[in-house]
């Protein structure tokens, strides 16, 4: 029997297999940020050991940083302490760090690929669940806890059990107006938020192949919301083209040489998957969530399902209650208060381009507050260079400075209790965007159309014109 893409990468990273136990796996790239690293550094200090491979470790500040006035000291004392600790620790252990304001700074999962640090066939970890994003380049990339961060610091390895493997095929032509976020929300709403537990998911099929690298990242990013450890997509020419000329990418000849090795990074025809699903892209429509997990999503033109249709239990009603919705209700036309564009899911240049293409020549609804947060300094620069910043400004929107921002509301960007926020991020859990905040997840097109009308709007109407 053949091997899967996952098998090929996994096998090449085994340092030791422990009988009836986990394997010791070598880690090629370790990303760290200010929130999940301080206790790991403290652990190293206690043991009196050094970071084994500081050259494979890269740090950024993203979760806590304010998205305005980054040149000023951070006001919140505990955020300031975390950032300060990261700067001190990375200096102490010789780790490259991109602090706020640095031209390479940004959300960890945006800057990894952007800087050419995320290559192909790698094992990549970070103390952050959305590390799955890097799977878009054909990597085994997954989130780890702080104790594991310490293990990687100390040994550049981790103890891991080989997960089960799932294949999700999306084939056919993607309808106009449907974006990567709609595809992944569609999949999660069909399969559920726990279907991936214990699995790594490979996404394949003609529709996936037709996506840009940025869109593939959106898909892999949210594989974690199905309960999976991570998702991955086999690299192709698009992947290699993306890597050309980036700050840390291998030089031209070197890239040519190693990309030959990447030629085997695909699942063999007869490879075994423990689970297998397929979707027809033509069935997908712009999506939106109505509840408090990413699986509670519908086509934007549809009604919220009745509990009896989907076997909804107490938690279904608790969820609707939190959101202030009723079963069978339509979301179209409902008033919104906030719009958030950003995060490692949809905070890349393409996402802002799509948003701008819809708001261009229109005006932001007066009673909508919009936070547009580029995923990185580089995204911010590109938007200005492409004059997208101007389009946005004319439509009444303002770009902020990069960071995780309202995706998890650790900084000041919190949605007030009871307010509705259309958000292109990845989690609509209770209180995720601030205590009592009501989050509706969607793609940049739905967010853009709704930001100019002030109510939940099907972007198809705008794309027709």
């Amino acid at each position, binding site marked *: 029997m053949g091997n899967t893409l996952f098998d090929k990468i996994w096998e090449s990273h085994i340092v030791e297999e422990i009988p009836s136990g986990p394997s010791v796996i070598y880690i090629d790239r370790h990303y760290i940020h200010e929130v999940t690293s301080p206790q790991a550094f403290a652990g190293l200090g206690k043991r009196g050991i050094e970071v084994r491979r500081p050259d494979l470790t890269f740090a950024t500040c993203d979760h806590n940083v304010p998205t305005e006035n980054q040149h000023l000291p951070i006001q919140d004392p505990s955020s300031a302490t975390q950032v300060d600790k990261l700067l001190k620790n990375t200096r102490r252990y010789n780790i490259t760090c991109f602090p706020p304001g640095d031209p390479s700074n940004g959300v960890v999962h945006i800057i990894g690929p952007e800087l050419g640090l995320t290559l192909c066939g790698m094992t990549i970890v970070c103390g952050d*669940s959305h590390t799955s994003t890097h799977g878009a380049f054909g990597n085994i990339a997954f989130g780890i806890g702080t104790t594991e961060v310490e293990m990687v610091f100390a040994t550049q390895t981790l103890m891991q059990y080989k997960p089960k493997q799932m294949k999700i095929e999306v084939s056919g032509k993607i309808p106009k107006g449907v974006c990567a976020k709609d595809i992944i929300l569609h999949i999660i709403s069909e399969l559920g*938020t726990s279907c991936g537990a214990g699995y790594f998911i490979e996404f394949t099929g003609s529709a996936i192949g037709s996506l840009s690298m940025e869109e593939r990242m959106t898909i892999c990013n949210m594989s974690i919301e199905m309960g999976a*450890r991570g998702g991955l997509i086999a690299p192709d020419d698009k992947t290699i083209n993306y890597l050309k000329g980036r700050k840390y990418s291998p030089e031209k000849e070197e890239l040519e040489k190693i990309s030959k090795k990447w030629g085997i990074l695909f699942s063999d025809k007869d490879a075994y998957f423990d689970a297998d699903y397929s979707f027809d892209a033509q069935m997908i429509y712009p999506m939106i969530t109505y509840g408090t997990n990413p699986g509670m999503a519908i086509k934007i033109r549809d009604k919220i399902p009745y509990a009896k249709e989907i076997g909804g239990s107490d938690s279904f009603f608790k969820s609707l209650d939190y959101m202030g919705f009723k079963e069978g209700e339509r979301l179209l036309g409902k008033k919104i208060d906030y719009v958030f564009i950003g995060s490692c899911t949809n905070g890349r240049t393409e996402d802002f381009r799509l948003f701008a293409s819809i708001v261009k020549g229109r005006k932001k609804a007066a009673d909508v507050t919009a936070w547009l947060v580029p995923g990185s300094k580089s995204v911010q620069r590109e938007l200005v260079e492409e004059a997208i910043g101007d389009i946005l400004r004319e439509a009444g929107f303002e770009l902020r400075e990069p960071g995780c921002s309202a995706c998890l509301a650790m900084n000041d960007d919190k949605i007030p209790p009871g307010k509705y926020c259309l958000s292109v991020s990845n989690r609509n859990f209770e209180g995720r965007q601030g205590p009592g905040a009501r989050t509706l997840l969607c793609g940049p097109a739905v967010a853009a159309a709704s930001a100019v009308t002030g109510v939940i709007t099907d972007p198809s109407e705008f794309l027709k014109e």
Partner: protein
Amino acid sequence: MSFEKFKTLISRPVIIPMENIDTDQIIPARFLKSTTREGIGENLFYDWRYNKDGSLNFESVFNKSSRGLKILAAGENSGCGSSREHAAWALYDYGFRAVISSSFADIFRGNALNNGLLPVKVSKDFMKQIFDFPYMQLKIDLEDRRVSFVDSPQYERPKEFKVYEEFEIDLYKQKCLIEGFEDIDYLLSRSILIEKYEKENSNFTR
């Protein structure tokens, strides 16, 4: 971090019969700003335990049951969401030593195991029994990999009642918990193998 060795545990469970309890509920993001692990249990399930004005929420199961219970029983897909290890620290620091559920999110499960908090996966039927008989004590025996209801004469059990169930945990992790041994100690002992891998192996980046 060092944790208590785990052999057997007897406790009444704290019951949260809800699915998809995510780590944002277990420990909201705004409490992730500390740079140490200590004292984090004070903020466990903060938005459930306290009202918006900061007063105690008497409806919360945590305020109805006494602190000191060592087992948390929760619905399917427990610990989903963010990878924050703070969730496992907070549960441990609050006093829990085991979480029982019919399924766990992978990262949470791993984090729990790394911190002396035993994730016990049982069948949906067994889970339902736990939810239906919340006042019965449970006994978790890690050596026998078994979770059982402790006999208690004041509760009448239905005929079909399943008294115990076995759960899975691999030998290595079982040993780590019983002996209070951590992965990092093992990995540090493998430095020769790691060096060898670094020298010899041509993986996909070189």
